[in-house]
């Protein structure tokens, strides 16, 4: 039994020991060792289905190791380690426990071979991760954490309902390809889609992630959505509807990202956009595309974590990540600046950086299957990514107008975490073969062909040129937040209006929705309390007479109904 333990369990149980350890040093060493042990243990496991547990007439497969789950398992463990290193300076054990349980449950879910195990870990990720948001300990974090929790747990509820119908249809709970034809399949897709931040189901992400703690956001950015990507790849590979969904996901967050001022929220939008690439890959569903999805998830976790870490370091030192209040930090934080640029280059898919070698798989797959418009959308999205994550983030934070802010360089542990992530970004970009060997399918793919490199460089250089020119000529001063819209020739003129309009529309509708929901919830709570609280109709002690009266009424109802 021990030899068939899900590696996620090691982290979850291990996390529970953390509060008992005395002293920061011991605690720190312990937390560093934990993911390493899990990693070594995972290495020792054979491929196959293990850890079967008989749950009445169903068999749970608590540990399934195959190539798809392994890729995600490895990257999740790497992300856990990075997250732990990055958070070493935090004295608050509450966050450490939440973070490790969260990471462990995400890993547990990846190795789940059946829906029930998946559901359990799915809900644990929801419940544990909300503490990373709440750990900010301010009222807006509490509120958005609660919204986040409701949506995440709701996704689990829909998943369970879907599983029930699935079980009724097929008599099986094995987690394999599901398909969208059945009612069960649709329900489960919605459950996955919520966690994957599908368009219109995505607001929780931009709502909650920027509210989490400096270290919490790094953890959050790695697991929840990628778990959903994994689940989609497992259950819905080749489901056509995912292609347009993914394409929309890549495109629409760009508008918001461009005009957003909170740089961590910009990253949250670009996270959404990157997920779109993966979802498109799943929708295409060929071996090449699925490899692309897995590879992109792998690289994406690293560079997205790196970007969040660099912005987290800024937030930690300066106390804000508002683009309009930052600038010139490269003098104070040279290392952070360098790492941020590496992350930015990776997300923008510069050749020799990790984003390039993974994104081109998906792009090639889209082209190869003849999805020209999808390919074009992805291209547009790539340009958008470059401009809001690749240029805007480092530019506004570290360069632009000198804000006059002077601070210390990020703490050493943060720098180490960023350095490791940056090393991965470059290492994978230069020498992608080890990653390709990990991918689920044996596909020979050469990213560095002349055509790929030239296309990508054209796109990037053109964007960069436009940006530089506009900046130099001062047409769009950085004080205006919509400046860098025009760096991209795809949506030069109408884009700005569209973006402004979209932003206003978005903020109005979302705020209206959120406010209405909060008002509604308050009203419901009050009404419930009025009726169910200790003084309420259902909560207080009734006089004996009215008890007897209602019993008689029920009797009357039964008898009368019987005669009808």
């Amino acid at each position, binding site marked *: 039994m021990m030899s068939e333990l899900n590696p996620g369990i090691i982290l979850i149980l291990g996390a529970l020991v953390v509060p008992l350890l005395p002293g920061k040093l011991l605690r720190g060493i312990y937390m560093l060792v934990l993911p390493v042990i899990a990693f070594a243990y995972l290495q020792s496991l054979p491929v196959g289905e293990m850890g079967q547990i008989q749950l009445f007439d169903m068999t749970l497969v608590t540990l399934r190791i195959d190539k798809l789950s392994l890729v995600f398992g490895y990257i999740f463990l790497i992300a856990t380690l990075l997250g732990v290193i990055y958070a070493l300076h935090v004295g608050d054990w509450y966050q450490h426990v939440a973070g490790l349980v969260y990471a462990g449950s995400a890993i547990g879910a990846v190795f789940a071979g059946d829906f029930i195990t998946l559901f359990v870990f799915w809900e644990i990720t929801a419940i544990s991760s909300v503490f990373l948001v709440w750990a900010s300990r301010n009222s807006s974090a509490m509120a958005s954490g609660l919204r986040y929790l409701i949506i995440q747990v709701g996704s689990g509820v829909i998943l369970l309902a879907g599983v029930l119908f699935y079980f*009724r249809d097929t008599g099986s709970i094995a987690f394999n390809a599901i398909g969208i034809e059945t009612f069960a399949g649709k329900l489960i897709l919605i459950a996955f889609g919520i966690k994957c931040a599908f368009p219109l189901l995505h607001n929780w992400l931009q709502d909650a992630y920027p509210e989490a703690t400096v270290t919490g956001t790094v953890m959050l950015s790695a697991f929840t959505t990628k778990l959903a990507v994994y689940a989609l790849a497992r259950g819905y590979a080749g489901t056509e509807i995912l292609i347009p969904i993914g394409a929309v996901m890549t495109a629409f967050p760009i508008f918001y990202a461009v005009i957003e001022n909170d740089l961590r929220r910009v990253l949250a939008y670009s996270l959404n956009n990157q997920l779109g690439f993966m979802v498109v890959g799943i929708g295409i569903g060929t071996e090449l595309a699925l490899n692309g999805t897995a590879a992109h998830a792998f690289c994406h976790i690293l560079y997205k974590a790196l970007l969040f870490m660099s912005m987290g370091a800024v937030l930690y030192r300066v106390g804000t990540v508002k683009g309009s209040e930052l600038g010139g930090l490269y003098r104070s934080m040279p290392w952070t600046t360098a790492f941020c640029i590496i992350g930015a280059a990776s997300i923008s898919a510069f050749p020799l950086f990790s984003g390039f070698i993974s994104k081109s798989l998906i792009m090639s797959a889209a082209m190869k299957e003849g999805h020209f418009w999808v390919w074009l959308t992805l291209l547009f999205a790539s340009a958008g990514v470059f401009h809001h994550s690749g240029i805007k983030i480092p530019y506004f934070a570290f360069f632009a107008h000198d804000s006059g802010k002077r601070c210390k360089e990020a703490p050493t542990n943060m720098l180490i975490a960023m350095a490791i992530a940056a090393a991965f970004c470059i290492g994978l970009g230069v020498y992608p073969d080890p990653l390709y060997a990990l991918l689920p399918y044996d596909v020979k793919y050469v990213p560095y062909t002349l055509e790929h490199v030239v296309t990508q460089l054209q796109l990037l250089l053109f964007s960069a040129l436009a940006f530089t020119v506009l900046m130099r000529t001062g047409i769009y001063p950085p004080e205006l937040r919509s400046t860098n819209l025009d760096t991209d020739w795809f949506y030069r003129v109408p884009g700005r209006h569209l973006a402004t309009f979209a932003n206003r529309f978005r903020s109005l509708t979302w705020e209206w929705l959120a406010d209405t929901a909060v008002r509604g919830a308050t009203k419901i709570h009050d009404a419930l309390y009025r009726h169910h609280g200790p003084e309420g109709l259902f909560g207080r002690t009734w006089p004996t007479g009215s008890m007897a009266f209602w019993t008689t009424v029920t009797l009357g109802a039964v008898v009368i109904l019987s005669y009808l």
Partner: protein
Amino acid sequence: MSALNWGAAEPHLPILLVMTPIFGALFSTFLRRGVLAWLLALIVTLSLPLMSITLLLKVLETGQPIIYKIGNWDAPFGIVYKVDQLSAYVLCVISFIGAVILPYARRSIAAEIEEPAQSWYITMYLLCLGGLLGIVITGDAFNAFVFLEISSLSTYVLIALGRHRRALLASYQYLIMGTIGATFYIIGVGLLYLVTGTLNFDDLSQRLSTAVADPGMRNATLTALGFIVVGLALKLALFPMHVWLPNAYAYAPSVATAFLAGTATKAAIYLLIRVVFSVFGTALSVEALPIPDLLLVLSLAAMFLASFSAVFENNAKRMLAYSSVAQVGYIMLGVALANQASMTGALAHIANHAIMKTALFLALGAVFYRIGSVLYSDMSGIGRKMPLTMAAFAIAGIGLMGTPGTSGFISKWYLAIGAIDAGLYSVVFMIVASSLISVVYIGRITEVVWFREPSPAAATAKEAPLSMLIPLWLLAGLTVYLGFDTRLTADVSAKAADILIGGIR
């Protein structure tokens, strides 16, 4: 287990099962010292699960019900005890809960009941246990009424002995309501006797089939059904006839609460299932009656409305009492859906809920033993001082939510499958959604006991004594064990459900 050799007593196990606790009660009245009475009760109650397990195994082995004729009188004239899969299963649940509490009861009773009343308290406990077992084992409608009254009357005393002054009021209210319920039941039985001239369940169902052909008789039968269902719904605390329950549970002594929560409502549920399915079900077309629809609506209302009350409650025992009303809602939902899967879920939940809820109340009893209160304000931070007690509480609480890996999941799974089979997709979502409310109320108390700073009362508390922890952990362990191995719960329930569903038309 089948190795248990009862020798010559074996054929008489059905009557022994009822008479042992009743005679035990009789003898314990003569024992002045509470300890002695407790020792006697311990021996008595420990023998009961052995008897009921033997009966269950025998029934499962032969597949035939065991009929025991009292005084060797034949069925329509004499009283028979009938043990089939369903009754044997419920007997096991009740006798097991009755036994597992006893080792715990010594210290709790010593702390909560004054010495002169202790042996009376034990007498009432045994009498109540005997009455509940009698309800389940008897095959006679009037005999069931007698046992119902025996158990009810002793319950009133058990509740009234609570230390809180409101225990008397709670007991009084339950007395009034319980009497109304029992009266309704006996009126219904009287009408049935009028129609058929018999009181034996099997006989009743046969004669009803022919009697309902006459429209006048049919009307009388329907009225009887109404009286019986409402009367029993009152005893089993179906919403909105549950209002007596929260106070009764909250102010009764800890042992009584744990015992009643695990057994009393379950016996009433059994009787309702027995009468509706085995007696009326064969005579009347159940689908054509409003009863299932009505039960469906009321149980859904219970699942939500009582759960909401639990969320806002600040007294832990009352919170669990409301949760009991909600859980009874689940059981009755399964009964109302009346298909194989849903009935399996309902019957499995009888055992699963009994075990979980008894564990929860035992944990609260241990807290009460240490700090003399179960208010949230006094319980805050108690988890740090009584980690074993509150860990067991948490496990049982997780079971109550219906988390996979606990027994609560099994019952809710079958219930949901039953709802799908019945074509009521919205009910599937309601089952899942109302489980979420239980996450809230269990989460709330978990937050209070683990994450808050200890209250003055909790700061000086010690871990509960071993005699309390062992029964508590046994039940908490069972909550997890029965989440995986369902041979004793869902499998037996499925067999019983087959018979019940097969019987109706």
